[in-house]
C-alpha cells in the first residue's frame, strides 16, 4: 500500500491506463462469452485493439515528439503484408497459432521499423508542415509500391513488380497479388492477441516516455534549439520516436490484416492515416489514455450509426467538427467555466439559505 502511495504521478496515471485496458478486456470477454453483444460488435473487437495500438504509437510521434505525421497507415501496411508473408512461411514450422501470430508480428514490426528508418532519415531533416506533407507523400508511395508488388512462395520467395506470371513459380501460392492484395489469409488474430499487443504497445510507449530518452524527446518537442544547446542530439531522438512508432504500427498492421480473409493495399491509404490521427487529436495529444478511449469509441460509433444508413458518415463528420469547435473555442470554454461557477455559487447560496433558515428555527 505504501509503495502504491509513493508512486510518482506519471506511474499512477499509467497504472490507471493499464487497469482500464484490462477491465475493458475482461468485461468484453465476459459479455462475448454470454452472447450479450452483437456479432458485428464481436467482429469489431480485433480492429479496435489494432486501432488502439495505432493510436498509442502515433501519439508517440504527434503528442510526445510533436511531429505531425500523415502517413502512419503506410507503416501499418508494411507490417500487414510482411506479417502475412511471414505467417505463411512459418505455417509448416510453427504449429501453435498464437506463437505463429507472435512471430509474424515480430517480423512485421522489424520490417516496419526498417521502413521507419528509411522514411525517417530524410523526413527528420524537415520540420512542421513540410514534415507533415512528406510523411503524407511517403504513405502514398508505400501504398503505390504495394499496389505493384507481387509476392509468391513455393518453398522460396519470389518477387515481381509486374504481374503474377513473371513471378516464375512452381506451384506454391501467390501471397500478395498487386492491387488485389492478399487473399485466403489464415485468420490468426484473436481478441486476446489484440489485448496482449495493446498491453505491449502501452508498455513500450509509457516506459519510453518515462525514460531518459523520452525526456529528451519531449525536450526537443518543447524547444528544439534549447534542447540542442544542452547537448541533446535532436535528430537521433526525433528519429527514435518515429521508428519505435513505425515498428508498433507494423505490429498492429499485422494483427489487423490477419483478422480478415483478404486485404488490399488500398485499405491503408491517406484516409486511414487521418483516421488514426483523429483518434490521437480527439483523445488529446500526448494523452495516451484519451487516445485509447477515442480509438475505441470512434471505431464503434460508425457501426452504431449504421441504422441511419447513408447519413452515418455525415453524422461522423459533423461530430468531428463540433467536437473540435467546442473543445477549442474560447467562448465555449468561458461559457462552461461560467456555468460551473454559477452552479457552485448556487450551491453556496443554497447552503447559505439553509443556514439562515436553520438559524431562524433555532431562534
Amino acid at each position: 500500500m505504501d509503495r502504491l502511495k509513493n508512486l510518482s504521478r506519471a506511474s499512477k496515471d499509467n497504472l490507471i491506463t493499464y487497469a482500464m485496458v484490462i477491465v475493458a478486456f475482461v468485461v468484453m470477454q465476459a459479455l462475448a462469452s454470454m452472447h450479450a453483444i452483437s456479432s458485428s460488435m464481436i467482429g469489431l473487437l480485433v480492429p479496435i485493439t489494432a486501432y488502439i495500438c495505432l493510436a498509442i504509437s502515433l501519439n508517440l510521434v504527434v503528442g510526445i515528439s510533436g511531429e505531425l505525421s500523415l502517413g502512419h497507415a503506410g507503416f501499418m501496411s508494411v507490417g500487414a503484408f510482411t506479417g502475412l508473408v511471414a505467417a505463411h512461411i512459418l505455417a509448416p514450422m510453427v504449429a501453435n497459432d498464437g506463437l505463429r501470430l507472435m512471430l509474424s508480428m515480430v517480423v512485421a514490426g522489424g520490417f516496419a521499423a526498417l521502413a521507419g528508418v528509411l522514411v525517417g532519415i530524410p523526413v527528420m531533416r524537415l520540420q512542421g508542415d513540410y514534415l507533415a506533407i512528406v510523411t503524407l507523400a511517403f504513405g502514398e508511395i508505400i501504398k503505390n509500391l504495394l499496389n505493384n508488388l507481387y509476392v509468391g512462395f513455393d518453398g522460396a520467395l519470389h518477387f515481381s513488380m509486374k504481374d503474377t506470371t513473371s513471378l516464375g513459380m512452381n506451384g506454391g501460392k501467390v501471397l500478395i497479388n498487386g492491387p488485389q492484395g492478399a487473399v485466403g489469409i489464415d485468420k490468426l488474430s484473436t481478441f486476446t492477441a489484440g489485448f496482449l499487443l495493446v498491453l505491449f504497445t502501452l508498455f513500450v510507449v509509457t516506459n519510453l516516455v518515462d525514460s531518459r530518452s523520452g525526456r529528451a524527446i519531449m525536450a526537443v518537442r518543447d524547444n528544439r534549439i534549447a534542447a540542442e544547446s544542452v547537448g541533446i542530439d535532436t535528430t537521433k531522438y526525433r528519429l527514435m520516436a518515429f521508428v519505435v512508432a513505425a515498428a508498433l504500427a507494423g505490429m498492429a498492421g499485422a494483427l489487423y490484416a490477419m483478422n480478415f480473409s483478404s486485404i488490399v493495399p488500398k485499405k491503408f491509404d491517406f484516409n486511414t492515416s487521418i483516421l488514426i490521427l483523429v483518434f490521437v487529436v480527439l483523445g488529446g495529444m500526448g494523452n495516451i489514455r484519451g487516445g485509447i478511449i477515442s480509438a475505441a469509441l470512434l471505431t464503434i460509433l460508425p457501426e452504431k450509426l449504421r441504422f441511419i444508413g447513408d447519413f452515418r458518415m455525415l453524422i461522423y463528420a459533423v461530430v468531428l467538427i463540433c467536437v473540435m469547435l467546442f473543445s477549442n473555442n474560447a467562448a465555449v470554454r468561458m461559457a462552461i467555466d461560467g456555468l460551473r461557477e454559477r452552479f457552485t455559487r448556487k450551491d453556496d447560496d443554497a447552503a447559505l439559505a439553509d443556514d439562515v433558515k436553520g438559524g431562524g428555527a433555532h431562534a
Partner: protein
Amino acid sequence: MGFITNLINGISLGSVYAIIALGYTMVYGIAKMLNFAHGDVIMVGGYICFIAMFNLGLPPIVAVLLSIVGCTCLGIVVERLAYKPLREAPSLAVLITAIGVSYFLQNSALLIWGADPKAFRSVVDLPSIKLFGGQLTVSPISIVTVLACVVIMVGLTLFTSRTKMGKAMRACSEDKGAAQLMGINVNTTISMVFAIGSGLAAIAGVLLCSTYPTLMPTTGSLPGIKAFTAAVIGGIGSIPGAALGGILLGIIEIFAKAYIGTQLADAIVFAVLIVVLLIRPAGLLGKEIHEKV
C-alpha cells in the same frame, strides 16, 4: 509527336493543378492552415456545373459562373462556421476540422448526387485542332485550361500587388497583429482569401471534369492532395511558386504515366516532392526563414 502530345497534356493537367494550388497556397499563406477540404470544393464546383448544364440546360458559360458563385459562397460559409471560431486554436485542431469539413462535403455529395460516376461533357464545345497534317491533335479544353491558368496567375499577381485588398492580404500573411494595428480588418481579409481560393477551386473543378470526364464524390480528393504537393514543391505561400509547382507536377505525372506506368505515376509524383524538399527545404520559390533563438 507522342512526346509533344504528352507535353501538351502535361501542361494542361499541370495548369489545373496550378489553379488548385493557388487556392491552397493563398489560404496557407494567410491562415497558416492546411485546408484539406479544398479538394472537395473542386468536386462541388464540378457538380454545380454539371447540374446547371445537364439538368437545367443552361449554357456552359452561365453554368461555369454559377459554379464559381456557388463555391465562393461555400468557401465563405465554411470559413465562417468551421475555421473562424478556431483562429486562436492549435493548428492541429484546425487541420482535423478541415478534415471533418472534407468528410462532410464528400458525404453530402454522396447523399445528394449518389455514388455512381456522372459523365461530364466538356464545357468547351469546339472541334479539336489538328496540326502537322493530323499528326498532332490538340483538344480545345487544353488550350482553354492553359489560358485560364495564365489569366488567373496574372490577375492574382496584379491583385495582390496593386489593390488595397491584395496589400491587406500580404500584410496579414506577414504579421496579423501588426496588420490589425494598421487598421486592416483581418477577418474580412481572411474571408476574402477563402472566397478567392474557393472560386478558383470551382474553375479548376470544371476544367478537370472537362478533361477527365468522370464526376464522383471523391473526384476532388486526389487532385487536391497533388495540388497541395505542387504548392509545397513551388514553395507554399508563393503565388508564382504554386503555378510553377503545378505545371511541373502535371508534366511529370503525364510523362511518368506514358513512359513508366500508370500504377507508379503517383509514387513518382510524391517522390519528386521529397527530392525537392530535401534539396530546397522551403520549396523551389519559397522564402527560407532562419530560426532565431
